[in-house]
Structures are given as C-alpha cells and as structure tokens.
C-alpha cells in the first residue's frame, strides 16, 4: 500500500511553485570531550529533513524545545550552513519534479544530458552552488522576525536606523527618500513617524515586534521566516501581532515559515503543518487534517496535552513516558518508540532501549540482571540469578513498551530471557495519501492510528 519512496517535495500546490525546497537537510554539531577536545560524537540537531514551502502560503513548523525547528529556520535563512543535503530556491513545478527524478538516480546511472540539466539546475537554484549575485538576491528575498523583542533590536540605534538599515545596506534609498520609506513601513505595521527618533527601550514588547516586522518588510521580500514571533508576548498583544501578520500576507502575498511551540497559534496561522521531533519531521500535512485525524502518535499527544477552551477531548489521553532521548545517539527505527504508548516490537526496539527503560522505571528489577550477552543491537540473552526474576522481567518488560507479547520478541527459558527484536531500518517520512505524510512505521503498516 506504500507508494514508491519519493520526497515530500513532490507534493505541493502545483500552481504557485515553491519558494524553498529542502532535500535531506542535516545539521550536526561535533561534540568535543576529553583533554585534547577529540570529537566523540555528533549532536544531530537536524537529521534529514525534506520540506517544501509553497509560495503565498503559511507553513507551520511546530515542536517542543530541542526538536531542531529553530536550527532548521536558521538554515533556511542562511544563518547556519547545513552539514549535508540541498536547499533549492524558486523552483517551478517542472523543475521540482525534475530534481526529484534526477535525485533518485545514482550519479553513474545519469545520462550526459541529465547530468547537464542537473548542473544547470544547481547553478540557478541550489543554495551554495548558485552565483553570488543570485545568492544575494535570495538574501534580499528572505527575511526573519525573531522571538525575543528585547534582543532583536540593537539598543544603541534609533528606530529610523534599525528599520532603514536593510535599504541602506542594499543602497536602495538614502537621505529623505530613505526617511519617507521608513515612515511608510512604520505606518504599515501600525506605528508612525513619531516613533522614528526613539530607542528600542522606549517601546513595549508588542511595539518592538512591530518594528522588527517593519525591518523585515523593508526590502519587500517574498518570504519571511517567523521564529516564535509571539511566544514572548502576552495573549492580548499576541492577537494584535498575529492579525497584523495575516493582513500583511494578504496585502503583499507573502510566504511565511511560522516556527512555534504553541499549538493554538500554529493551528490558527498555518495552511500546512510540519510536526518535528528530535531533529526529524514526524508528520506533515494540511493543518485541520493533522489536528482532526493525526497520523503520528506524537502529533496526537501534542494536540491532547495542549489545554484548550473548547469542549473535553474525546477518549482517554495518551501520554509520553520518560524524557527526550539524547540527540547524540537517537533511538533506532522510529525515534519516539521508547516513549510511545502504542509502540510495537517492530517500532525499532533495541536491547539497549529496553534495558535503559527498565532501569529508569523499575530500578529494583534492573538490579536483578546478572549478565547480558548481545548477539546484535536487536538480539541478546539476558541472564538472571533466579527463574522467577527472569519471569518477572519478561512480563514487566512486556507491558513497559506496550510490546505485544505475541510478537515473540520476548521468550523466557529458565534463568534467562532471550530478546529477539526485528532488525528495523530508520523510519522515513512516507505519504499515506496526497499531502499527508507520517514517519510512524506503525501507521505506515496499519493505515491509521489505533482508536484512543
């Protein structure tokens, strides 16, 4: 039932083309330890993300702290260079499809003509291999509004210099023409000429975000990245800013990437939503569909744990157990499986996962283990002092990860328990229906989430 693996990049509103397309983008930070500061591992902040930001629409990027959404926003804004993967700019529908096709071919299988097309596409659209002039044009076209109203405006500059700076840097205007443009921008965001000659500390949080937005609009960009623009604001001020952003999008036909951890705001603002967990996209799809019928347990748990003013949420609420794993060596298979209430044996359980979960939740039981013989990451023999210790381990471990006993993942014989988890490759983001993607391996096989 699963269509051939192609990237989410093929799936977008054909008419308007894509402002930015990401293919398998990764951002890893080296971890240095010990005396000689040797690199002992990689923090995989962003670990293979495919994404398409459709022109004129708002793409919501939601996830909890540490999931990599801000890093991803910074990569797209050009502030952080990706460790691997490609960033394509301004692809029209044909180019988009062409790139997906060529990408799937291995370089040797490419014909000369295809390689030529690939070179041309890269020279015109791939960030990093395009000409400096094109890169600079993209830089003008993509602006950012930051979260902390206090630290996103230079306290030493007047509003006139702050908002006017983009125009001065790109030598678009100067002198009185510049002042006129700045006043126009201020009026557009609900401020006025009287605010020109003031310092940032003389404004409230809401007014500062308006100045930040005015600065972002100075070069009348096509695409604005909003990195948690209203998280630091009170609800009443947040409403003013969100209304302003929507109004500007309508008037100027802007494309937004809206990054936030607030589900109410992302539901209100975005056409498409990408839910991120531990550096990867867990689920992607139109906003209301993702909210009404989520295809990934994590999206569902996020939705249910977010308190709302509306009626009671139907059914029992799922809960995540344990804490977010270490991004240096994330769990195998589906990354949520150690915490997921509906995880099965084939979700990527490894021997270490099970032992770590047992140690964390029932330390007494963990002490009874006398030895572990590993055949591989997924198969091992766990020895105990006594038979009943082994038995007890088997049935507690059985319920822990909601492992279905029938999967014969666990079998007890005498004083030892053999673990045989299916060898599972890392979960990939696959389409379940046009425009609806999930990386939950369980849903990919079952078609939909189990009823709560």
């Amino acid at each position, binding site marked *: 039932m699963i269509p051939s693996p192609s990237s989410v990049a093929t799936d977008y509103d054909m008419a308007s083309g894509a402002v930015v397309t990401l293919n398998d983008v990764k951002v890893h930070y080296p971890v240095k330890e010990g005396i000689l500061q040797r690199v002992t591992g990689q923090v995989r902040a962003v670990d293979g993300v495919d994404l398409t930001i459709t022109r004129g629409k708002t793409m919501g990027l939601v996830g909890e702290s540490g999931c990599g959404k801000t890093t991803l926003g910074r990569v797209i804004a050009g502030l952080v260079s990706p460790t691997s993967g490609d960033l394509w700019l301004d692809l029209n529908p044909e180019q988009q499809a062409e790139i997906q096709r060529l990408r799937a071919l291995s370089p040797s299988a490419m014909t000369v003509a295809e390689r030529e097309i690939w070179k041309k596409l890269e020279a015109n659209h791939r960030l990093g291999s395009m000409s400096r002039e094109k890169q600079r044009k993209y830089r003008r076209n993509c602006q950012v509004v930051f979260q902390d109203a206090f630290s996103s405006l230079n306290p030493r500059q007047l509003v006139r210099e702050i908002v006017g700076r983009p125009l001065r840097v790109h030598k678009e205007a100067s002198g009185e023409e510049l002042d006129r443009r700045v006043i126009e921008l201020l009026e557009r965001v609900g401020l006025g000429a009287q605010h020109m000659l003031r310092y940032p500390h003389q404004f409230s949080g809401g007014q500062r975000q308006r100045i930040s937005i005015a600065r972002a609009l100075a070069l009348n960009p096509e695409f604005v990245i909003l990195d948690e623009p209203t998280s630091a604001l009170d609800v009443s001020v947040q*409403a003013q800013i969100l209304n302003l952003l929507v109004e500007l999008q309508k008037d100027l036909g802007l494309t937004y990437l809206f990054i936030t951890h607030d589900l109410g705001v992302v539901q209100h603002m975005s056409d498409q939503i990408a839910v991120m967990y531990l550096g990867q996209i867990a689920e992607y799809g139109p906003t209301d569909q993702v909210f009404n019928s989520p295809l990934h347990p994590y999206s569902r748990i996020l939705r249910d744990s*977010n308190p709302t003013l509306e009626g009671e949420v139907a059914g029992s609420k799922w809960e995540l157990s344990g804490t977010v794993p270490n991004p240096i060596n994330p769990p195998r298979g589906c990354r949520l499986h150690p915490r997921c209430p509906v995880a099965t044996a084939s979700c990527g359980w490894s021997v270490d996962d099970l032992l770590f979960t047992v140690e964390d939740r029932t330390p007494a039981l963990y002490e009874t283990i006398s030895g572990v013989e590993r055949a591989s990451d997924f198969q091992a023999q766990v020895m105990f002092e006594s038979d009943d210790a082994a038995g007890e381990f088997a049935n507690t471990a059985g319920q822990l990860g909601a492992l279905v006993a029938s999967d014969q993942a666990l079998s007890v014989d005498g004083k030892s328990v053999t673990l045989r988890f299916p060898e599972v490759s890392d979960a990939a983001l696959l389409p379940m229906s046009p425009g609806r993607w999930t990386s939950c391996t369980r849903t990919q096989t079952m078609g939909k989430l189990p009823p709560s």
Partner: protein
Amino acid sequence: MPDQEPLIKVEDLSVRFHSSKGVAHAVDHVSFEIFPSETLALVGETGCGKSVTARSIIRLVPEPPGEYASGRVLLKNDDSTFTDVLAAPMKQVRAIRGDRISMIFQDPGKALNPALTVGRQLAEVFGEHRASVILGDAGIGGAKAGALVRRIAQQRAGALSRGAYSLVSRKKSIALQKSIDDLVIRALADTGIPNPRKIMNSYPHELSGGMKQRVMIAQALACDPDLLIADEPTTALDVTIQARILELIHQMQQRRGTAILYITHDLSLVREFADRVAVMYAGRIVETGPAREVLASPQHPYTQGLLAAIPRSQTPRGELAAIPGSVPHLIDPPAQCHFASRCQWAAPACSRDVPRLLSLSPKREVACLRFEQAADRSSAPEDMPIRAEFERKMTS
C-alpha cells in the same frame, strides 16, 4: 465547593514598590478567599501583580524596595482563630512557610540550589519542620535528646557534608541519617519519581525540566501543607510535560485535600485545573467566580477581551479580537479604572472613580462601573457607562 470557613482570607491587600522613578502600586486593595482543598486560579498578564499577591501570602516580598501598604492575610488555625501573616512575628511566619503554606516556582532550574544535591535540599524542609519525627524514627528519645540533638538533626538534614555534624555516637548518627533519607525517598516516590534514591543523590543540573519540577512538588508537599501556591508551575516546561505535571498536582490534591492557589497567564489551563478563578489587571482583581462560569460568560470587558484574543480552532484567521492599546504604567497612578483607556464601554466616570469589586450573585464578583448605579457613585448618570446587559439580566 465547601461553604464552610475559608482557609485564607486576603483583605484589602496593597503592595507598593519604591524606585528612583516613583512608587509603583503593584497590588492595589486586593481581597479574596481560598477555601480548604479548593483550587483558586489567579489569572492575568505580565505585570498585573498576580505573582506579588501570591508571594505576599507567605510574606516573601522583599521589604525594601517592597512595602505592604495596607491589608491583612488571615490564615485559619486549627482552633479556628486567624493569624495575620503580615503582622505576625517572623519566627511564627517561618513556622508557617513550608509546613502550612508552601510554594513552587516558575523555573524549577532556578528554584533549586545548583550547589546542593536534591536530597539535601529536600531534607531541609524536614529538618526545619519535622525534627521531632526524624528523632522519633531514629529511635532517639524526644525528652532526653535535648536541644543539641534537635539542632544537629536540623543541621544534618541540610548539612553540607554529612560527616560534619556526626553525633557523639556513630550508631545514632547513622540511624539519624537513615531516618532523614527515608523521609526524603518517601516524599520523592510520592510524586511518581521512579528511582528516588538515585535522584536524591544527584545535582539539579543532572535532571530534566519535568523531573526538577517533580522534585519541587515533592519538596513543597513534604509536610502535607494546607495550601500550595503554584507560581506559573509549567510555563517553563514543554506542553507534553506540562500536562503530566498539572495532572500530578491534581492527583496529589485529591489524595491530600490541599488547597491550591494557581498563578498563571494561560486562561485555557484555568478551565481544566481550577475550581474558581480571579482575573487580575494592573494590580486589581476585576472579576471572580467559578472557572467554567467565568469562561463561559465573562462579565468584565478585560476578561471578555482576553478570552476573545485566544486563538480557537474555528476562529477565522486574522480575526482575533485583540484588545487595543497597552497596560498603563502603575507609578503613582491616578484614581481611575486602569482599563478605561482600552475599554469599549468606557465613560467619563471610569477615568475618575476606582470601581469596587461588587458581587453580582453569591459566587460572582465584578469590578466595573457598568454594574453600579449613578446614585451610589454620586455622579451624573450620563457620566456612567451604559448598563444595558446588567438591566437585561436583572429583569429576565
């Protein structure tokens, strides 16, 4: 909601802060009550005075620069007399803090001392309020133990290094230490922490945000207080962990009958976790009542504006009802309704008189001139804001 004696009566509380720029009226004649095992939510935006009000209940506001300008905080004792926390001698206030009223803070990372292990900080509460229990468990007779042992028990509970205060006899000191550790482990286990012994000996920076908040809860509920003040307990946490922490606090309240004073800026939390709610704006309470009722039919313009500003699933995009303008500064404020400048029903009287908190019905109160007669205010009727809804409701 039980309608017997309230546990806490806050009467006409005013707190002012002196600064070079003038005197800020952070809390202005606030009065409310908290009933035993009830959850009251104190809701308002940044700078509305909710946190200062909460901290005043255990007299935590630093004096200077703060000053309790007026009012009393009455705590009901077992013999149903009342103690005014603001007037009582500090020794008595300290006996109340942590034993009868305890508090958890917004950022657990900052509220735990980075240089001490979790166990040691938790033991401090027991050392301070349950020294006799420690002695009893350790089998050291209360009478002949004497003040020295009691002091050492106290010190030992929070002692920097365990050896520093060892008792005369080795055996006693081990017994003492064991009884303290048992109390700490039981408190931690009570909040569902899986491996309390390991957590007891670890340092705050080794724990996740959610785990640190559980430790704070364990520490606050260690002596089974009558009131728990929760100052935005989950604002610094992710939404999935927030749900579990709020659930935990709710369960522990059911088990122990502790009253909870919730401080939050998030109205949607109030619906699920609070029995009653008091909405604050610019240092004053503008509306109180049962949570569901206030959320369903808010009376005060500010509460209405606040609820309308929250994005809901069916709110069309870009049409959030934002409250225009911003909060006035509270330095030497004139006598006025502080919301007048942003209120759609504002009338001349609103920027002259301070509205009183009047009860519409036994459990509902609102502070807005729209619900008052011109006569009581001795000002011309045309100066008063129109009272349409109120008349309609009264007559229907």
